[in-house]
């Protein structure tokens, strides 16, 4: 082929070439601005009083590292620990630590510090150490220990007298206004390499509505998106990403059920029309559920029926003749929660039950949002039990039938009426590249960079 003909052929494809997006390597520099609803007053990952949300767990991961992490298949991968070994009974675990890791104050990570950190977060564990590794001895066999070690609360921290905890993560604290604003700076000597961003500014305690406004005004490059807003925000051409459904929306009773109470709770559970709530109030986001664990995690979630059964609800209601009014509380700052509670009260009324929506903290029932803390169903279930005062799981690990039995036992206690599993959703400006949304709803900005940033 002559060169002129060659070029003629070439020109025919030049337009396509120009339209393609250039694949660019990550660029250094720039400050990423985030907004989130949670307003933690402490950055200490072991401080459980702060409650949990996907964003608080993710922020913790910017500053702190765990010994292991779970990959997208839920399998453990090395982080601050490079290898591990369990005794035959899985009651004793030894983890060898990575060399060359330093905290943000320049101190080297040692087995002694790691052991101390784990002891603080888990007083029931017997944690010892030697020159290279730490050993965790447990009261009972725990095949899921690695999944537990991957939880943010088990991040390795160093506490200096009179100052906040510090970690080994890719960002260090530059400025911290508790509950309001956190400014992070890139850690030049991070063991995984300096992050591409120079810094991250996180505005806390912002409602979904305020976040969206800041996003539209260009004041934030990354925001949380409410489930019911997901469809609208995406249809307006904004880039939105969602995790798998990982947040449990459920009704939680404040006390255990008495024998008389049980039939009323059954009546409420059978009265709720999840299908119409899902399509109208949630705008199709998430999945209706009558089980605690989502099906993608357990594999059997569909065996818990989600359809309302009003005749059966009335049948259960009829077993107790006395009139009763339950108060049901919700987050006053969340307009969706109010609508959900009002809708559930309407369903309950059809079954002959009286529910009184309330923002009081002393209500009989509470509409709760609980992020499932782990991709490991055993750990997620145990964590949910612990944080909501449900009976502790009796076993860890085992067959899928054992897991089903544990979950069924939780359900049989009638403390909880699962309603929906919701995804964690985020709006992202086009300039934000290579951030990671994990299957468990948390996110990671350690490898993120700004397309317009300058190195």
């Amino acid at each position, binding site marked *: *082929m002559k*060169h002129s003909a*060659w*070029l003629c*052929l*070439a*020109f025919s*494809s*030049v337009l*396509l*070439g*120009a*339209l*393609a*997006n*250039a*694949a*660019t*390597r*990550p*660029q*250094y520099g720039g400050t990423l601005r985030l907004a989130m609803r949670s307003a933690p007053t402490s950055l200490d990952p072991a401080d459980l009083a702060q409650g949990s949300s996907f964003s608080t767990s993710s922020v913790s991961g910017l500053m702190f590292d765990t010994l292991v992490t779970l*990959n*997208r*298949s*839920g*399998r453990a991968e090395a982080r601050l620990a490079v290898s591990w070994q369990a005794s035959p009974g899985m009651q004793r675990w030894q983890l060898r630590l990575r060399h*060359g890791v330093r905290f943000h104050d320049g101190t080297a990570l040692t087995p002694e510090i790691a052991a101390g950190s784990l002891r603080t977060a888990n007083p029931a564990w017997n944690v010892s150490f030697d020159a290279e590794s730490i050993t965790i001895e447990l009261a009972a066999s725990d095949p899921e220990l690695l999944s537990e070690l991957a939880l943010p609360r088990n991040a390795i921290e160093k506490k200096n007298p009179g100052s906040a905890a510090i970690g080994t993560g890719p960002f260090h604290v530059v400025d911290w206004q508790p509950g309001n604003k956190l400014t992070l700076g890139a850690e*030049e*000597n*991070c*063991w*995984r*390499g*300096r*992050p*591409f961003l120079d810094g991250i500014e996180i505005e806390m305690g912002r409602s979904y509505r305020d976040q969206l406004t800041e996003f539209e005004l260009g004041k934030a490059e990354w925001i949380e998106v409410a489930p019911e807003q997901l469809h609208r925000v995406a249809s307006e051409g904004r880039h939105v990403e969602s995790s798998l459904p990982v947040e449990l929306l459920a009704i939680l009773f404040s006390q255990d059920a008495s024998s008389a109470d049980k039939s009323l709770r059954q009546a409420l559970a059978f009265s709720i029309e999840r299908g119409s709530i899902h399509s109208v109030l949630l705008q199709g986001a998430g999945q209706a559920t009558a089980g605690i664990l989502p*099906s*993608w*995690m*357990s*594999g*059997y979630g*569909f*065996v818990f029926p989600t359809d309302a059964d009003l005749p059966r609800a009335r049948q259960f209601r009829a077993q107790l003749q006395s009139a009763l009014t339950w108060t049901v509380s919700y987050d006053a700052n969340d307009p969706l929660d109010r609508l959900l509670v009002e809708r559930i009260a309407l369903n309950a009324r059809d079954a002959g039950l009286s529910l009184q929506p309330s923002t009081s903290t002393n209500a009989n029932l509470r509409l709760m949002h609980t992020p499932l803390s782990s*991709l490991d*169903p055993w750990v997620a279930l145990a964590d949910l039990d612990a944080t909501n005062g449900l009976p502790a799981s009796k076993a860890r690990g085992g*067959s*899928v*039938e054992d897991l*089903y039995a544990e979950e069924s036992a939780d359900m049989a206690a009638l403390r909880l009426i699962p309603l929906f599993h919701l995804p964690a959703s985020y709006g992202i400006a086009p300039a934000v590249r290579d951030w990671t949304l994990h*299957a468990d709803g948390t996110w990671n900005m*350690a*490898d993120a960079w700004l397309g317009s940033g*300058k*190195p």
Partner: protein
Amino acid sequence: MKRAVYNSGIPNMVQSGLRSALRVIFPLALMTLALAASARAADWSVPEQQLARKIASVTGPGAITLTVENRSSLSRRDYDIIRNGLRSALESAAIKVTRSEQATTVKISLSESLVSYVWVAEIHTAGGESSVAMVSMPRPDGTVSRDSVPLSLRKIPLWTSSDPILDISVLEDGSMPTRLAVLDPEKISVYRMQGGKWQNEQVLLVAHAHPWPRDLRGRLLPGKDHLLDAYLPGVICHSGNGSALTLDCRESDDPWPLLSGSTSGGLSVFPSASLANGASNVVPQLGAFFAPARNFFTGVLTPGVGKFTTVPKFYSAAVLPHEKFTLWLFATVDGQVHMIDGATDQAVRLALGSDLASVKTACGAGWQVLTTNAGENEDSIRAYEFPERDAIAVSPAIDLPGAVTALWTESRGDTAVVVTHDRETGSYEAFRVALSCVQ
């Protein structure tokens, strides 16, 4: 390396020795077919029998109505196999499948979780009792098969690994590949061709005192009087030339060579003389300093291009030798391409990727530049020429199974190595990219 698989032969083998190539390709093809066949013929009999036994323990011998629903990623073919297997297993457990409405109903759902297949049997007896039985089995790690697009750009699989591949070098004796070296963040794995297969010969550890930067890059080049050199940010390694391979790594900010090819008197010489349009196969050498804690070159060149000894910070460079001058292209970190011919520096914003690699061919102008385009999850690669310094696409793009993490010209200069990262599976794949002339 956790898992390394040699995928197929490499093109020069076919050109230089068909018999040798067949010796490699034929067993590999057989192995591939065998693996494919074994992957298709998964054995479901154990879980089928387990679930049938659990159902039988609830229903006892007798008749049931059975439905089987696929709620998982199992294929239709697997679903059919499992459904038939379950029926057989139930019959072996003295359970007869009927259509009688009076019988116990058993609904089996073939479901899955993140890590397992979960088969759930919901059993409703005629007496109104309900129970659930389950079995689970591990899901295989996801393997994704993709079709290659055999256009004028060809990609030939070289290597697959779960560890990052920074660069790969096929070391040749004459034109016969004898060794393969794979550079990852911690080591160089050297393989020797034996009996038509790459056999692991040695692992050479890459010593480094400082943490590697994110987006780590590395370059592997055949040595002049030794096997190979490795260039990583702030570290340069030279292999020994004795019979037992050694690797000497030291902290160094010395420049990285921007050109491959054999060196002679300050020139890089590329072997093929059959270049189109009088394009040169001898190019002045050029080195550039790499920022030790970043993913780019600082912009300082040695010895320089004409009067230019510095350019803006850049990710990659490509050379386009002409009869009377050499045009260098630098993909700078601000997204521009600087075209420098020694006398002028023309900065343009083109829709080219950060990674450029020049290849010399017998097609068109004789030298083309490969670059990457970004897709949603997968990148593509395409060849360009620069007549009058305009970027003209001269090949269709070929899709790659992931995001491009490295693109380097190979030592012979007529092919390039591209490394991709599949974010779904986490695996890295290295390909040789060759440009064929359109007839």
